[in-house]
């Protein structure tokens, strides 16, 4: 570990993993935590339990705000364990001088998103701190969900299985970059921020046997695929051309030197199913987003690695994103 914590330690990639393992896992060590899933499975597999903090800047962005994000983020972590989100807590840390009207707008958008999930906030806390102690407003939510499909685990990938994405990737990350100060981009791009439980329920109702699921938040699709490849000790072979990316997202990536698969999403998940469930799963997913695609197959070619095949016959590994996401300079 470096002597001080840098922004890179919060990137959802390699440095982030190092921070979690070397500081938090070391001291909090227990069997449930060690599974390192989106949400902890407790009470003999009956309940899923998770927490998340939200610090996004700007607070309001095309297609969402920090409130919507705070409910989606936690509910999605529960949904990714096959659980129905039930009860949430809500803690806010507010910088003095924050406009009350904005606060109410944020809480209203939390309420709307809770309804989509059929969940409610049952406990909360507020702190107000002096100017400069936080950047406007931070929110933490913790959630409990009831598990509807058991046995979802990142260790379940086997050769021959198929991997799908629920929609086009990178929209949230690209939207936030475009909305940040100083980039001056005109764009119609919207975040993908959305509650995923309805789609998971549709998959369960259609009898799709879910091997594993994960929402591709920080670190994007590449972080999810890398983690699965390592945890299950298999090779994930991705056909680069099949990864759905919106034109605008691709454009922003080109300009700033990013890859869409490294960008954060807030309403996009990656799904692994047996080959025979592939078309059924795709049909269910395409009911919500026509851009959903099968993007990869599980093989044994390079165990623990994600392999990217280009349309002109070259191959390369897709690694975990590292460092801060910074633009290319020339």
């Amino acid at each position, binding site marked *: 570990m*470096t002597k*001080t*914590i*840098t*922004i*890179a330690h919060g990137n959802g990639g*390699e*440095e982030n993993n190092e921070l979690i393992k070397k500081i938090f896992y070391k001291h909090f060590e227990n069997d449930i935590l060690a599974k390192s899933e989106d949400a902890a499975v407790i009470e003999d597999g009956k309940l899923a339990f998770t927490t998340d903090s939200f610090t996004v800047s700007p607070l309001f962005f095309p297609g969402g705000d920090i409130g919507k994000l705070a409910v989606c983020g936690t509910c999605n972590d529960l949904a990714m364990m096959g659980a129905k989100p039930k009860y949430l807590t809500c803690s806010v840390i507010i910088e003095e001088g924050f406009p009350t009207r904005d606060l109410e707008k944020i809480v209203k958008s939390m309420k709307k998103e809770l309804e989509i999930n059929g969940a409610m906030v049952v406990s909360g806390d507020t702190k107000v701190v002096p100017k400069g102690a936080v950047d406007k407003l931070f929110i933490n939510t913790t959630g409990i969900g009831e598990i509807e499909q058991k046995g979802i685990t990142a260790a379940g990938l086997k050769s021959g299985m198929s991997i799908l994405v629920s929609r086009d990737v990178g929209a949230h990350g690209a939207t936030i970059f475009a909305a940040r100060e*100083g*980039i001056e981009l005109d764009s119609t791009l919207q975040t993908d921020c959305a509650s995923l439980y309805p789609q998971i329920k549709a998959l369960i109702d259609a009898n799709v046997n879910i091997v594993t699921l994960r929402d591709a938040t920080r670190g994007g699709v590449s972080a999810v695929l890398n983690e699965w490849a390592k945890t299950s000790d298999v090779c994930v072979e991705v056909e680069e*051309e099949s990864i759905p990316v919106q*034109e605008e997202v*691709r*454009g922003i990536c*080109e*300009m*700033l*030197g990013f890859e869409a698969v490294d960008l954060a999403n807030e309403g996009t998940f990656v799904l692994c199913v047996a080959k025979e469930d592939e078309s059924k799963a795709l049909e269910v997913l395409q009911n919500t987003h026509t851009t959903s695609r099968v993007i990869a197959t599980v093989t044994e070619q390079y165990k623990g690695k994600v392999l990217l095949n*280009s*349309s*002109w*016959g*070259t*191959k*390369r*590994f897709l*690694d975990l994103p*590292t*460092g*801060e996401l*910074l*633009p*290319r*300079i*020339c």
Partner: protein
Amino acid sequence: MENLELKNLYDDFRDGETIKAYANMIAEDAKKLKKPINIMEVCGGHTHTIMKFGLPQLLPENVNFIHGPGCPVCIMPKERIDHAYVLAMQDDVILVTLGDMIKVPGSNGSLQDARAKGADVRFVYSPMECIKIAEENPDKTVIFFAIGFETTTPMTAVLVEQVIKQKITNILFHINHVTVPEVMVELIDSRDVHVDSYNNQIDAFLGPSHVSVISGSKIYDKFPKDYGRPVVVTGFEPVDAMQGISMIIKQFIEDRCELEVQYKRVVNHEGNLKAQELIETYFEKMSLFRWRGLGNVPDSGLKLREEYAAYDAEIQYKDVLPIAEIEDHKLCICGDILRGMAKPQECTIFGTACKPTTPIGSCMVSSEGACAAYYKYGNLI
């Protein structure tokens, strides 16, 4: 041009079938080569394209790449990174720079570390954003730590011009702009201290198109003429790169040695004269610039002209800036890699002690450095 969309700029230039067709043509032509050839792509952007799109996997064995020193972050010697760090740590200074510069470690740490210790370090996409930062922080001094080749120099020059015109008193400059042709001459001419020879391995150059958009293709006139090395000015998409490589190979099999432009859609011989004039107005050559991994290269760096010394952070903060040169780790072979004498994987610390998260040598620090590109994309080949 009315309906030009961003995707028009790259879509056709990534077409799988076109890339395969060039690969086949190159394979056929390469059979006629009398000896293996080494092509240096000077620019880090090309290194990135070549590795990201896996182009070496499509080339025959007798066509080889040497990854050049064209990454402005990678070539920054540690003492100048220390300048940035020291400036950032001054009270009432906001240090502004571009992209990857923020994570390069100097002897005390990187700008990222300085920021974690409380320094105000910001990265911008356009130097012009400094004006806004300066307006919002009238009691602070904004120092723009300017880096880059011919491509970014005009943007810095425009900022200097605006600072002077608008009489802005709280923006200073730390100039680290470098130029491409001088270091190419150095790579051909210089004596390698490790092997005590002048034998570089470069047979031809792939010139970066964006540099020539500013400076014209004329900056390479001397390479075929005086040094017997063909140059093809080439774009950055995979189809561009494959066509550029194909043009170089054709020169060899047809016994030609010329300057050619693959990227005709934008580049001409003279370049952007307005931009050149702007650079000339505010900057002059530094007699020596020390390149990380390569050492001193004559006339390869720029500095603010003497009459603008009042805006020069190197002069205004002279008393606090360290002057001693700092050598790289003795196991690092970046100098050899930049001269084409070695490949990243031949380095004993590549991928072990030296990784993108903990870079030791220059070629690992930015995503455009040869080692970083090999680490990220090249671990299959």
